[in-house]
C-alpha cells in the first residue's frame, strides 16, 4: 500500500520526538501516515519506542516535540478520554469488580447512552466475539482467551474508528494466539476500523498487518507491507529482525546497476543485489534467506551462484529440514528444505555444493 499524503492521512505523526528524562530521546523524529481502515503493526524489540508511540497516540504520554493528528486535527492537547480511541491493553485491564456486561457497558455509560440501547450494543459486541452467554460473569471467571475477547469487545463497543492494541496476545498460548490473530484481523476488516497494533512477535506482525513499521532505536527502520519487509529488507537490522537470515560479510568490489560483486572476507567472490551500498570499497553484509538456498543445482537457474559447504548439523523438523552448514567461514549458515519425497537428507561432515540466485542475495549495510 503506498504512502498517502499527510492531508488525507487518518492518523499522522509529524516529526514526533519523545524524551522521558530530558537527556535521551526514546522516539527520534517519527513520521508516519496511516490511511483509514489500515491495519498497521509497530514491531520492534523492547525499548525500541513502539509502545511509547502508541501511548502518545492514546494520550497517556505527551510528545516532547512534533504533532500527532487524528483525521487532520492535532490531538496533542486533547485528553485521552476525549480522543475516542479504543484500546486493548497488554493484560486486558478488564475491571475486576464489574461483570463482563458492566465492563462493556462502562464506555457507553460515560457517553450517557440510554439503558436499552446500551444493553443492545453490549449484547451485539459480545455476540461479535462469540461471548454472548458470558455477560454475567466476572473477568476472573474467564480463561485468558475469553478475557482477550472481552477486552476486544470492550474496545469496540463504543464504535471507535481507531483501535490501539498493545501486545494483546502476549499472554496467550501459541494455538490460541494463532486463532485470535485471525479473528482480530477478520473483525478489523469487517468493521472497517483502523488499527494500530504493537507487538514484538514478527510472525504476528507479518500475518496480521497491511503494513508493518519496524522500530529500532527510536526510529522506524522500515515501513512496508509484510511481503516486501520479508523479501526486500532495506537494512541489516530489518533483515536480521524479520525471519531467519544468513549473512556473509565482505567488501564491495564493483557496483553495476542492479548487481554488484562482493569479495567475501573468506576469499570467495559472489554477486548480489546492492540495496544500501553505492560504491566499491564499502564494507557490506550480504544476506540470503535460508529457504532461497538450494543444494540441488538442477532447481536453480543458469546464472546461479554456487559455493562449497560442509554440513555441520541436520535437524528434522517435520515439515522442513533445517541444515546448518559451514559456508565461507560462517558456521551458522542455515538452509531450509521442504520435506518432499525426493528430498535428500544430509549427514554431518558431508561436503556439498550450495547455490542461490544472485537476486535473492542482498548486499546491505555492514553495521
Amino acid at each position: 500500500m503506498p504512502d498517502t499524503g499527510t492531508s488525507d492521512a487518518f492518523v499522522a505523526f509529524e516529526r514526533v520526538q519523545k524524551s522521558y528524562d530530558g537527556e535521551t530521546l526514546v522516539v527520534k523524529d517519527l513520521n508516519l501516515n496511516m490511511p483509514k481502515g489500515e491495519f498497521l503493526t509497530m514491531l520492534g524489540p523492547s525499548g525500541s519506542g513502539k509502545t511509547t508511540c502508541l501511548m502518545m497516540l492514546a494520550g497517556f504520554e505527551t510528545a516532547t516535540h512534533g504533532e500527532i493528528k487524528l483525521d487532520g486535527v492535532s490531538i496533542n492537547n486533547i485528553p485521552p478520554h476525549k480522543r475516542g480511541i479504543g484500546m486493548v491493553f497488554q493484560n486486558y485491564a478488564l475491571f475486576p469488580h464489574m461483570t463482563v456486561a458492566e465492563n462493556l457497558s462502562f464506555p457507553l455509560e460515560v457517553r450517557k447512552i440510554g439503558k436499552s440501547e446500551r444493553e443492545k450494543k453490549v449484547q451485539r459486541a459480545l455476540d461479535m466475539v462469540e461471548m454472548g452467554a458470558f455477560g454475567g460473569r466476572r473477568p476472573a471467571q474467564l480463561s485468558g482467551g475469553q478475557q482477550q475477547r472481552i477486552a476486544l469487545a470492550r474496545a469496540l463497543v463504543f464504535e471507535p474508528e481507531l483501535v490501539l492494541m498493545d501486545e494483546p496476545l502476549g499472554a496467550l498460548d501459541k494455538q490460541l494466539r494463532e486463532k485470535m490473530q485471525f479473528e482480530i484481523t477478520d473483525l478489523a476488516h469487517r468493521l472497517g476500523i483502523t488499527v494500530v497494533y504493537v507487538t514484538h512477535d514478527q510472525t504476528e506482525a507479518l500475518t496480521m498487518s497491511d503494513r508493518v513499521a519496524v522500530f529500532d532505536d527510536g526510529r522506524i527502520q522500515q515501513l512496508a507491507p509484510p511481503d516486501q519487509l520479508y523479501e526486500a529488507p532495506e537494512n541489516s537490522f530489518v533483515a536480521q529482525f524479520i525471519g531467519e537470515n544468513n549473512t556473509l560479510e565482505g567488501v564491495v568490489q564493483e557496483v553495476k546497476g542492479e548487481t554488484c560483486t562482493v569479495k567475501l572476507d573468506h576469499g570467495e567472490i559472489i554477486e548480489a543485489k546492492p540495496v544500501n551500498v553505492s560504491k566499491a570499497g564499502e564494507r557490506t553484509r550480504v544476506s540470503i534467506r535460508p529457504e532461497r538456498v538450494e543444494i540441488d543445482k538442477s532447481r536453480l537457474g543458469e546464472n546461479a551462484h554456487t559455493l562449497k559447504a560442509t554440513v555441520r548439523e541436520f535437524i528434522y523438523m517435520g515439515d522442513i529440514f533445517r541444515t546448518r552448514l559451514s559456508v565461507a567461514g560462517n558456521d551458522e549458515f542455515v538452509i531450509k528444505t521442504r520435506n518432499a519425497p525426493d528430498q535428500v537428507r544430509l549427514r554431518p561432515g558431508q561436503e556439498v555444493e550450495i547455490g542461490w540466485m544472485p537476486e535473492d542475495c542482498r548486499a546491505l549495510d555492514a553495521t
Partner: protein
Amino acid sequence: MTDATGADKFTGPTPDNALRQADAESGPVLAADGTPLKKSLGRALRMQKIRALALIAPLLIFVLVSFIAPIADMLFRSVENQIVSETLPRTTEALGSWDGEGMPSEDVFEAAYYDIFIAAENRIHTRLGSRLNYELTGASSLFRRSGRGLDDIGEVYQDQFEDLDENWDEARPWAEIMGSEDWIAAQEEWDAADEEGGMPRFQLREGAATAFPNAAQAYLTFARFTQTEDEDSPLEEEPWSMVHTALYQDLAAEDYASYDGPRAGMVQAADELVASPDFQTVTFADGFAEIDEDWATPEIWQTIKLYSPNYTSGYFLNAVDMQLTPDGAEARDADEQIYLFLFKRTLFMSLVITFSCIALGYPVAFLLSNLPMRTANVLMILVLLPFWTSLLVRTSAWKVMLQQQGVINDVLVWLGLVADDSRLVMINNQFGTIVAMTHILLPFMILPMYSVMSTIPPSYLRAAKSLGATNWTAFWRVYFPQSIPGIGAGSILVFILSIGYYITPEIVGGTTGTFISNRIAYHISTSLNWGLAAALGSILLVVVLLLYWAYDRIVGIDNVKLG
C-alpha cells in the same frame, strides 16, 4: 462425596454417574499396600502436622500463659461474687428465708453478729464493706464501724459475768470448761517449752458441744483463731466478747442445775444470774441499731441478700447503667447513668477518628502507590517516622501544640484571627483527643491502603480513560472500588485500636474526651472495683467482636488485604 448433581434415574449414564457408580461398587480407594487411601494420606501428613505444631508451640504456650489465661481470669471476675457468702455464711443462709419485705428476723441479726464478729477478727469485714459499697453507698463505713461496735453487744454480758465471778474474765477457766484434758496438758507442756510452732491443736472437751451448743462453737472458733492467726496459747488469752454472748444464749435456753462438767459451780452461778430478773439483755437487732441506724433499715439487708449468690449479674448491670433490685434489673436514675454514655462516646469518637484517618490517609496512599518505587520508599519512611518516637512524646507534643498558650493559638493570635483573651480551647476535650489520635493512628490506615493500592495496575485507570471516562469517573468507578479492601483493612485496624485506646485520651482527653478504657483503668487502679472493670472490658470485647462480625457479613473479611 457431596455433589449437587446426584445420580438419578432421569439422567442415565453420564460420566459423573458412571464415576459415582464405580465408587459405590469398589468402596473407598485403596493405597498400594491395601490400606484405605485416606488413612494412608493421613499417616503421611501426620509428621508434617506434628512439626508445624512443634514450631508454633512455644509461642502458643507463651500466649496462653501470659495473655489468654490472665484475660480469661480477669473477665471471670465480672460475674464472680463469692466474697459475700464466704464472709457471711450464716447470714446469707438465714436471709434465704427472708422475703425481703420489712425488717429481717432476730435470727438474721444473730447470724450477722457472729459472721461480722469473726470477719472483724479476721480483718476481712472492710473488704466486704467495700464490695457492698459498689451496690449501696455507705456500706463500706457501715461495716468498718460495725467491726469495732459489735463488742458493745458482747460486753453487756461479759461485764455482768465478770461482776459475778472474776474467773469469767480469765483465760484458764474458759479453757477448762471447753477444752479437753489431753489438749490442756499438751498445751501446758508446749507453753513451758517455749517453742516456735507446732502448737497442739485445740480440741473441745467431750460433752462441751452438747452442754453449750453456742458457746462451744464460739470458743472453738476463738481458740483455733488464737492458735493459728495470733500464735498465742488459748490458756493465756481471755476469749472474745462473742463467746460471752454465746454463753448467755446457752444459759438462757437451758437449765444448768444438773451441769457436772469442770467449773460446775461457776457455770451454775452464771445460769442463776441469767435467770434472775435483774440480768440485763439486749437483742441483736437493737445492738446493731445501736452501732448504726442503717442496720435498722431494710436496704442493707436487701443488698446482702441480693448479692449472696456466688455469681452475680450485678457488675454487668452496673456496666450498662442498671442495677439489681429485689424486683429485678432496673435502669438507674438518669443522673447516675455514665457507662452507656461513655460507650456511645467511645464509639462515636472512634468513628470520627477512623473517618479522619481515611480522609487524610487515602490521598497519601494514592500518591505513594503511584510514585516510582524509589520515591515511594523514601516517602514511606516519612509515614513510618512517627513510629520511631514514643507514643507519649507524640501525645505530649500535641499538648504543646494545642494548649491555650500553645503554638497554634500563638500563631492564630499573631495572625490576628483570634483575640488574645479568647484563645481556642483545643486540648483536654474531644477535639484534642480526635486530633492526637488521628495523628497517631494514621500510619495504620496508610499502610494497608498503600499495600492494596500498589497492587492496582495503572492500566485500569488508563483503560477507563481510553473508554471515555473523565479523570474523576475513572477514579470513582474503577480505581476506588478496587481500593475498598484497603480502606476496609485500615478502618478495622484503626477503629479497633482506637476503641480501646487509653494513653492518649488519658493525657489529652480532659473530662469530655476520655474513652471507656479510661474508666476501666480507673476501676482497675483507683476504685479497685475489678468486677465492674471486667464487666466493662467484656462488653467492649463483645462490641468489637460484633463489629468485626458485621463487617465480615457486609464487606467480607476475605476482602481485607494487609499486604
